[in-house]
Every structure is written in structure tokens, then in C-alpha cells.
């Protein structure tokens, strides 16, 4: 009986490594706890850590720098106000990204139409600090054409492509941010990519 039980139960060393793994898989835990108690410097550290993906997602979805900055700020403010509701078992950055996504989608729903000048503005904004690095790898024209084709896609497609390819998130993480089943992400990615491919072909033909 004891042998049977010991074969099922993990050894203390294994248990230790499982616990350590669990602790490691949830980054920012200490900062979140301190921020919850009112330590603003801890919250500032959290903002610094996740500002770029949050702002990046907002810009991909909203396509204007001013709106993206405003919504990203609002995202962090909401995160701070509702820090008590944050489930520490889940990654903090994904929780904040989900808030940002919801705020962006709310704003998009309120928008009645898309201005072409917004799209132009985004083209200028997106390369940002990465311009020289990216341009060294792919030609500026190709990059512009890819961004241009991306901007013609719907928010759902832009979102899934940005999270998977730009932010290098896993399908499981994307599912968590979007609140959908992980099994649907690969299909969503394919459809978005296929739309992008067709759009680029059309642009090339013109």
C-alpha cells in the first residue's frame, strides 16, 4: 500500500521543483502584491515592464498614436483600480493586455467610420524605435507594404496577428487575452494570414 502510494505521490524534491516552477511561471507576483498594498514604485515597475506590448496592441487596433497612448494609459489606470480583482495565478501582462483589448474594442465600436488619415498616421508611427533594425532585415518598401496590407484587415485579424507574430505570444496566451478557446487560434491565424496574403497580392497587382 505504501509502495503504491509513494509511486503516485511526488517526492519532496519533485514537489519542490513543481512549486518553484509554479512560482516562476507567474512573473511580476511580488510587484503586484506590493502595488496592491499601495506601493506606487512597484506599480511603476509593472508599467515599465508591460508598456510596450500594451501600447503596441492599442496602436495595432486603433491605428492612431494619440488614441493608442490615451487608451494604454486608461488601461494601466483601470489595472491599478482593479488590482484587487486580479487573479495572481494568471500572468499579469496577459491580464493587462485583456483590459487594453476590451477598451480598444469599446472605442472601435463607438467609432462610426475609419479615416484614411489615421491609417497614414499609423504607417509613420509603427516603425518607431525599431526602424533601423527592421529595415536592415527587410526592405523598407516591403515593410511598408506589409503594414499597409495589415491596416486594411479588421480588428480581430490585426489583433491575432499582432499578438502571435509581433508579440510572439503562444496560442494559449492569445486565447486567454481574447477570451476564446485555444483550439480556435490557429484557424483564426490562418484566416487572418490568408486575408493578408490576398491583400498583398492585390496591392502588388496595382
Amino acid at each position, binding site marked *: 500500500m505504501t509502495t503504491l502510494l509513494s509511486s503516485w505521490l511526488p517526492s519532496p524534491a519533485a514537489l519542490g521543483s513543481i512549486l518553484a516552477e509554479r512560482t516562476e511561471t507567474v512573473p511580476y507576483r511580488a510587484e503586484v502584491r*506590493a*502595488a*496592491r*498594498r*499601495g*506601493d*506606487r*514604485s512597484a*506599480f*511603476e515597475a509593472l*508599467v*515599465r515592464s508591460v*508598456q*510596450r*506590448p500594451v*501600447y*503596441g*496592441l492599442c*496602436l495595432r487596433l486603433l491605428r492612431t*498614436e494619440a488614441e493608442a*497612448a490615451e487608451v*494604454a*494609459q486608461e488601461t*494601466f*489606470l483601470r489595472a*491599478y*483600480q*482593479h*488590482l*484587487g480583482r486580479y487573479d495572481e495565478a494568471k500572468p499579469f501582462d496577459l491580464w493587462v493586455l485583456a483590459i487594453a483589448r476590451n477598451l480598444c474594442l469599446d472605442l472601435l465600436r463607438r467609432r462610426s467610420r475609419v479615416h484614411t488619415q489615421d491609417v497614414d498616421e499609423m504607417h509613420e*508611427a*509603427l*516603425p*518607431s*524605435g*525599431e526602424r533601423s*533594425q*527592421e529595415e536592415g*532585415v*527587410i526592405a523598407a518598401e*516591403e*515593410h511598408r507594404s*506589409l*503594414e499597409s496590407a495589415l491596416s486594411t484587415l479588421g480588428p480581430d485579424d490585426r489583433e491575432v*496577428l499582432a499578438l502571435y*507574430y*509581433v*508579440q*510572439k505570444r503562444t496560442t494559449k496566451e492569445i486565447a486567454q487575452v481574447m477570451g476564446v478557446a485555444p483550439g480556435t487560434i*490557429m*484557424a483564426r491565424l*490562418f*484566416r487572418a*494570414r*490568408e486575408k*493578408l*496574403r490576398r491583400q*498583398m497580392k492585390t496591392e502588388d497587382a496595382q
Partner: protein
Amino acid sequence: MNACPELETLLIAAAEHDAEALAHLRTCPDCAALAEEHRQMEKDLFRLADPLPPPDFVQSVMARVALEPAPVRVELRTGLSILAVTLMGATLAFVAAHGNLGLLGTRAAWAVVAWRNLFFAVSEALAALWSTAALPTAVAMVGLILVSTLGLRRLAGHRVVEARVRP
């Protein structure tokens, strides 16, 4: 050659190293060309990066955060509000229950008039409890004090952190 499967099904299966899908891609030049276009596009997409937020972004966020109360205080306030409402509701329900109002009035009048008796009765009850079950009573009291102290410490934790952060 077999009819081509749907591209979505084919590419998703190929990404999961499905043998049949991979075999089809090896034998069908049309599907292979489409798969190659997708692969190339993925390569380009992976090279994109998130833009940097405006330089004053963190300062703007923190300026807005500075106006907010600490999250723990909000939690505490919400918890206390819920507790107060629950207690009020329970008290009202107790008082409003049949006969309880009259009973409460009688007891209150009795307590006011004969408070000495009340004090005596309570002290007698405590003495009786102590003489019959001193150890469990003591353990329960110590436990209650410990739990209350730890709870209060946890609730007041943010003050300790603030004091530690400030020089």
C-alpha cells in the same frame, strides 16, 4: 493525385506535422506554392516589432495613478461596506421576526433596570465556563486574538510597506 484539401485544414495539419498533409504538400505544386507564400509571410510578420510608447508615457500613467487610493484600501472599504450591510440586514431581520421586537425591548429594559444583575450573571457564566472548561476556553481565546491580530496586520500591511519604501 487526390483532390486538394481545404488550404486551412492542410496548412494547420502540416504545422502539426501530419504525415498525410506533408505528403500532399510534397506532391502538389499548387498547394506547395501557397504554403510557401504563407511561410514567407510568416517570416516577414515575425520581423515586425511593437513600437515604443511616447517618452512621457510612464510619467503620465503614474500622474493619474497618484490620484487613486491604494487598491488595498478600496478592497477594505468594499469589504467593510458588504459586512456593514450584511450585519444591518441580519439585525433588521432578527428584530422584524415575530416576537423578537417585543422580546428585545423587554430584555433591554431589564438590562437597563437591573444592570447589576446582568453583570453578575455574565461574570457567573464566565466563572462557570472557566471552572468547567478552562483549557478549551483559553485556547479559543488565544486563537481568536491571534487570528484578529494577523488579520489586522494584513489589512494594515500597506502602511508597513510605505514606511519601508520611504527613507
